């Protein structure tokens, strides 16, 4: 990175020889302000990230000499049922962590922004609360809610639906969905908060004009609020999608990837492969694939929601 910087600096000096000497020296001094942050970020974030990419091309147990294996680890990510399954699970989680919260968040925003709604601040504080607490604690809480004698089953029994009760996190068919719903619970408040702050910036005269044209509350929401929230929806989709794909804490605490690998996600396998099974290269390859997947999603979301000019 430092090489790129000096190159550019030389470029600028060459292109604009008329810059006064003092000004140029001031520009060099400006680097001193950026340097400490850049150094820490480069040393403890970018450099390890690049190292992980390097590890991904090797077979390495973390102790002995690493062996160059080219793209073998990547081939394994896509052919090994367990590894590839974890990627599929994380894609399912996107529906629950991103799509569902955005939908519910829009609904809540519509209700909160409606004329005559009282207690806006209180509702917002409550809806946002799950976003504040550590996901580890969220996981502990929901384990108990989904337990055999937990709240969900208690409620089912209370209305006479005993037949439907189930150990939700322990069953192959329901565990991933159950965890997904925890994600919905966590992320909805974040989406709502982004949307409400965006909706408050929409010009009130747009609503009046729409009302004048005879648009009802629902029409006003779809034709004024929704287009006005394009940027916020884009940001919410990016944040929540990253949270889904890179999830770790919640799964680690609730199911540990079980039952029978039904809820494994890349983050969990990266941790296990690297630090329990001594397959650092495989873990690194999975982490790189996860990163590429995230970048692909972020780029796609940005493209899809870009303002057409």
């Amino acid at each position, binding site marked *: 990175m430092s090489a790129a910087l000096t190159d550019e600096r030389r470029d600028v000096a060459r292109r604009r020889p008329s810059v006064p000497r003092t000004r140029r020296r001031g520009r060099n001094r400006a680097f001193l302000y950026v340097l400490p942050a850049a150094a820490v970020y480069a040393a403890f974030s970018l450099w390890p990230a*690049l190292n992980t990419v390097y590890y991904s091309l090797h077979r390495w147990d973390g102790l002995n000499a690493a062996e160059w294996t080219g793209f073998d680890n990547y081939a394994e990510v896509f052919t090994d049922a367990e590894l590839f399954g974890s990627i599929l699970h994380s894609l399912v989680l996107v529906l629950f962590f991103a799509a569902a919260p955005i939908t519910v968040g829009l609904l809540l925003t519509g209700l909160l922004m409606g004329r005559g709604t009282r207690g806006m601040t209180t509702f917002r504080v409550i809806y946002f*609360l799950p976003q504040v607490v550590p996901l580890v604690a969220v996981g502990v809480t929901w384990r108990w809610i989904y337990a055999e004698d937990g709240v969900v089953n208690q409620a089912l029994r209370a209305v006479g639906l005993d037949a439907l009760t189930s150990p939700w996190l322990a069953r192959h068919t329901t565990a991933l969905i159950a965890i997904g719903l925890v994600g919905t619970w966590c992320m909805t408040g974040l989406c709502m908060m982004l949307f409400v702050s965006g909706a408050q910036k929409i010009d009130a005269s747009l609503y009046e004009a729409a009302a004048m044209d005879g648009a009802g509350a629902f029409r006003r929401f779809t034709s004024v609020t929704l287009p006005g929230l394009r940027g916020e929806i884009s940001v919410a989709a990016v944040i929540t999608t990253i949270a889904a794909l890179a999830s770790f804490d919640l799964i680690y605490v609730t199911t540990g990837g079980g039952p029978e690998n039904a809820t494994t996600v890349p983050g969990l396998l990266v941790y296990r492969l690297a630090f329990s099974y001594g397959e650092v290269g495989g873990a690194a390859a999975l982490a790189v694939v996860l990163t590429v997947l995230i970048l692909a999603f972020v780029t796609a979301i940005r493209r899809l929601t870009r303002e057409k000019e």
Partner: protein
Amino acid sequence: MKPRLPVLLARHAVLVVFAVVFLTPFAGIVLAAFQDGPGTGGFALPEHWTFDNFSAAWEQGRFGDLITSSLIIAVLVVPATIVLATLAGFGLAILRPAGHRRITGAFVAGLTLPTELVVIALYYNLDGIGLTNNYAGIALAEIALFLPFGVFWMHTHFGNVPREIVESGRIDGAGDLRVLKDLLLPISIPATTTLAVLFFVWAWNQFLIVLVLMQSPGRRTATAGLGYFVGEFSTDVPLLSAASLIVIAPVVVVYLIFQRSFVNGITQGAIKG
């Protein structure tokens, strides 16, 4: 033109139902934490209210040590990240060295890098220089993790400061540092408060980095300690609930006190991105 009463009532009813859904898990663990005996596991008022679960969780989970660790890491991470982010944001937005756009871009790119990508090599890198199992190692990892948002946030903040403020300082002959210290910092208190609140909560909640980098049980953070506690006492619901409340309480208190700063950080920080 106000909506009619039934519409208003229906709307509030829906909002209240959602509020109940969001609060039920919290209410559930509060009730369970005060339960005497093993508890039924379901949602029920305790027959006998007791604080025993809290003292038991505190002792068995060594939460005194864990909370001390969390606070040490927060003290190492929060001020340092704010100082670094403020200096960098000032440099990039006001002084604008050559290539400042590219450098800003490199910081912003960090917002999308998953921790999973960094943490594998970070462990071996830090192990090589004796910084695993060490507060400083975790602090450096978290500072690097939070800097992209911090730099971006301060860059945006300084970028929105009217140019005249800086120019007026220049005319008075103030150097860069004087401009930052005497003119810009006094009007940046809300921006840095927001960062302080966000960084504290993020540092408190961070799990993966601590899990990987800290092996000594007594020096884990409260959040990481809770992660292990679950494995050991997975069936004792009242004990786990009490432990969770101990870990949750500090961040909830900070959130409720600094609610406005916190929400500003999330909404404005995200939107400008």
